[in-house]
């Protein structure tokens, strides 16, 4: 069994990462999960959270606002709506994400509301975890 797999993190605007990883921790919509090589093929949606990548070259962490992940025998791809490396995740970017999330929540139709309201709250949770202050 191979001890690494291909990991790709892409956002609509650019490709953020493409490395050989030994494990990837994902904020799945139904709970966190860790994908390792030879994981069963899975597609899961993501909630706002932190993707942690462990690779022989070192670990990396990215904040994502949602999207989905595709895990198969060849590797793991995360298609994030927006993604930023944790080291570049500043108060400004958080504010921007929060404003977008809150706007989306406020403009949402009733059937979408639950989902979007949850997102804004979850984003605030992520911020707290990283020591930033979500004031929205």
């Amino acid at each position: 069994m191979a001890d690494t797999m291909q990991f790709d993190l892409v956002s609509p605007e650019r490709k953020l990462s493409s490395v050989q990883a030994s494990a990837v921790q994902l904020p799945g919509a139904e709970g966190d999960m860790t994908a390792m090589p030879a994981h069963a093929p899975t597609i899961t949606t993501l909630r706002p959270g932190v993707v942690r990548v462990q690779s022989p070259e070192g670990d990396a962490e990215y904040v994502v606002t949602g999207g989905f992940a595709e895990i198969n025998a060849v590797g793991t791809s995360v298609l994030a709506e927006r993604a930023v490396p944790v080291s570049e995740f500043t108060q400004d970017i958080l504010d921007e994400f929060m404003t977008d999330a809150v706007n989306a929540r406020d403009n949402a139709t009733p059937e979408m509301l639950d989902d979007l309201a949850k997102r804004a709250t979850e984003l605030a949770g992520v911020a707290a975890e990283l020591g930033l202050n979500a004031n929205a």
Partner: protein
Amino acid sequence: MPSLKDLKNRIESVKSTRKITKAMQMVAAAKLRRAQEAAEASRPYAERFNAVMAGLAASAGGEDAPKLLAGTGSDQVHLLVVMTAERGLCGGFNSSIVKMARAKAEQLLAQGKTVKMLTVGKKGREQLKREYEDIMIEHVDLTEVKRIGYNNAQGIATDLILRFNGGEFDVATIFYNTFENVVSQIPTEKQVIPASFEAEEGADEGSTVYDYEPSEEGILETLLPSGVATAIFSALLENAASEQGARMSAMDNATRNAGDMIDKLTIEFNRSRQAVITNELIEIISGAEAL
């Protein structure tokens, strides 16, 4: 016959026009490179996304598929989303999109359908306003946007989806230019609602059986809105690259034409200057002979 001074002024003015078109060409070339890079950077996401969606749509799309995928069951009301540039001076770029949208609108109207229009970009709106002002429902202004981001596309997509859910239309089609190369941009129409996904050829994703979390339907429902946004985002980027490409070749032509014109005017100027000299000589000589 224009006077020498007139000719000289004209040459000067054509020369400064040439300087401007030359500068615009170079600016467009620089911007084109960036736009192309942006378009290329967005491709992996769009490809993966479409591959996954194609698989999902094939397995979960049935009778009770979400409306965004299956449609409302009617195709009476069409929404044409016409995406053009905010600026002119880019050859046939805007006109070719408008022409295509207009043909589609006429065709739909002739079939007795209801047509509504949404314009993105000022130039398309200006061209379509005269005929279709009463069926235009919205205009998206991107004048202030320097670099097109995913959130621009998301804004447009959200607006479309809200209108769709509100029952304002049944089918939405976007019109934009696909960037082929600097000299050719292909006007393209693409239906975004109800969504259709084509898997890239050579993708053998269909053979893998995936576990879905939450459920296939749940994922489909969450991802379909992003699908609309992704389609619009790639259209916006293609459009941006096409616009710069079109402007670059238009300005290249303009620069060349200005050069030709300067040559012609210079010849005319020299000719009339010589005519003036000849005239003066004749006057002097005939004056001397008369004495």
